[in-house]
């Protein structure tokens, strides 16, 4: 059996929030138990509203922050057990990240060449000319030209900058690339360009992507598997085909119905969710989705549901488990 390149088990991240002087600090549970496997060459898309913990997950995977609890192993090495600095450095090379805002992710005082070479300076023992060679190779791989080497970030457009950021992420030859909304700050035409570049690079270098997005039409284009999150918890995890054709969780259904589409099916029902996402400091008891769910009953209010396989999807929902929905769907 092939080993997953990223293996996350019940990852949690809590932030202490000070509520005032001398008052006990409260816990903000940004991430409350996420598990998944990711294999080489595959793309896992993580979707959800703002504040659902997508970016926190990205930061944990990129080792910018450490998980509060849970296990995360990358290429067979358990991160939570690694204390050795040199080993963690080796692991860092395997996971790299591309950020959302191409205007904030490049240091405005450094030339493109310096930005691309920095990871090499820190993580490899290459000399200056070898580094330059590698940076130039990487630039041509993402469609930048040699003369861009001496330029500064402010001389580039958003799409070009994002390609520079991708080149920086790939220069250490990582196995996993965490893409934190890499195209949401770009124009639609540039989005297509960057997404296609990402797909091409994935095939060429057999990269594993964790693709974080709130744009389902982009996810439909790039993902193999989709993980839907709500308030720091996964609610549905399935392959792209299953998720888009037959969403199980009420939240996923609402999310999908909110995607703007060219109106081909005229009678497409728009499921409107009531209210706001609750605060992660004080989440509702039971299923966290219950205040906004039209199917919520007593069980939903008291006991949190667990992820179970249901119609080829792993879903955490009481209504599905108790066959209150789903069957009704079959009847339609």
């Amino acid at each position: 059996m092939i080993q997953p390149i990223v293996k996350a088990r019940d990852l949690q991240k809590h932030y202490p929030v000070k509520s005032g002087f001398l008052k006990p600090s409260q816990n903000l549970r940004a991430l409350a138990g996420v598990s998944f496997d990711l294999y080489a060459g595959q793309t896992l898309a993580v979707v959800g509203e703002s504040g659902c913990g997508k970016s926190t997950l990205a930061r944990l995977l990129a080792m910018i922050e450490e998980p509060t609890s849970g296990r995360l192993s990358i290429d067979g090495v358990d991160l939570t057990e690694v204390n050795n600095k040199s080993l963690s450095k080796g692991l860092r090379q395997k996971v790299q990240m591309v950020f959302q805002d191409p205007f904030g992710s490049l240091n405005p005082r450094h030339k493109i060449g310096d930005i691309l070479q920095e990871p090499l300076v820190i993580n490899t023992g290459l000399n200056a000319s070898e580094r330059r060679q590698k940076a130039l190779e990487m630039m041509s791989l993402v469609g930048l030209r040699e003369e861009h080497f001496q330029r500064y970030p402010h001389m580039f457009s958003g799409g070009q900058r994002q390609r520079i950021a991708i080149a920086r992420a790939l220069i250490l030859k990582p196995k996993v690339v965490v893409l934190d909304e890499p195209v949401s700050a770009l124009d639609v035409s540039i989005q297509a360009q960057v997404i296609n570049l990402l797909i091409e690079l994935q095939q060429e270098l057999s990269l594993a992507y964790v693709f974080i997005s709130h744009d389902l039409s982009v996810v439909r284009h790039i993902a193999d598997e989709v993980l839907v999150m709500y308030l720091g918890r996964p609610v549905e995890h399935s392959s792209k085909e299953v998720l888009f054709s037959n969403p199980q969780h009420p939240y996923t259904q609402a999310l999908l119905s909110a995607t703007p589409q060219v109106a081909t099916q005229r009678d497409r029902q728009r499921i409107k969710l009531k209210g706001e996402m609750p605060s992660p400091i004080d989440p509702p008891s039971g299923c966290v989705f219950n205040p906004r769910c039209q199917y919520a009953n007593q069980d939903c209010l008291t006991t949190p549901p667990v992820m179970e396989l249901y119609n080829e999807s792993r879903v955490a929902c009481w209504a599905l488990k108790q066959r209150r929905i789903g069957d009704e769907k079959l009847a339609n």
Partner: protein
Amino acid sequence: MIVANKKKIHQMSDNLSESEFVQGRSLWADARRRFMGNKAATVSLYILVLIVLFSFIGPWFAVWTNEEIDWGAMGSAATQGMPSFATGHFFGTDDLGRDIYSRVIQGTQISLMIGVIGAAIAVVVGTLYGSISGYVGGRTDQIMMRIVDILMAIPFMFVLILMLVVFGRSIGMLFVGIGLLSWLDMSRIVRGQTLSLKNKEFIEAAQATGVSDFKIITRHIVPNLLGVVAVYATLLVPGMILAESFISFLGLGVQEPNTSWGALISEGAGTIRYDTEWQLLFPLAFFVVSLFCFYFIGDGLRDALDPKDR
């Protein structure tokens, strides 16, 4: 979605970038161009350079050194010590018959030195302290900033005067006193800037690459702070000069035979009713013009380095 293959991407990038080779222009080069476009600032810079040059080249033209006493003018400065080329006293003499021209040169050197060294201490200590405090954050930040608050709450002039009285009046003591207190504001400003930079994605990108914290501060945070620091430092120089002049005016600062603008102005102001206004006017002119220049340059720098994100 458009399916573009690699070739197309290459073509696209070729079309996007101009065909001829363009040398990258850094933000600093941009700022220099904007600064040079500012007339007041550029003129001030030239005047200031002239004043500095004067303080080094001036002695070559002096007829009298700053320690020689013109016995003919001593005691009758109002009639014998007027500014004149004939006697060699270009700016006149003081009541003791000393040449004001040479004294102003000496005062310019000392005043500028105090201003620049005081600002330099503020830049080095304040930038390091502020960026470390801001970047590390949490409890360290709290403790470091409360120390600054406490030091700021102590009246600066009072401490300085006390130090000069207790430890004796010397230029060295003046430097220590000004240096000890000048970095406080700077560290606060730098900390604030660091806090806003710290969450920028390029810092996170550096962390994800494995750059050490110290390297992040020196390579990524400090270069992006320098604009603000440069502006504040140029505005700090005249502040230092003013503080020193005030202390010297009180008679506690620079001691004879050394002198500074403040000390000269103090002397000149003391004798103004004996019709020896040149004793006040020459040092005062240098003082005022230099301060104006520093403020105009600071203003020009602020416009040029306007920290807008580009």
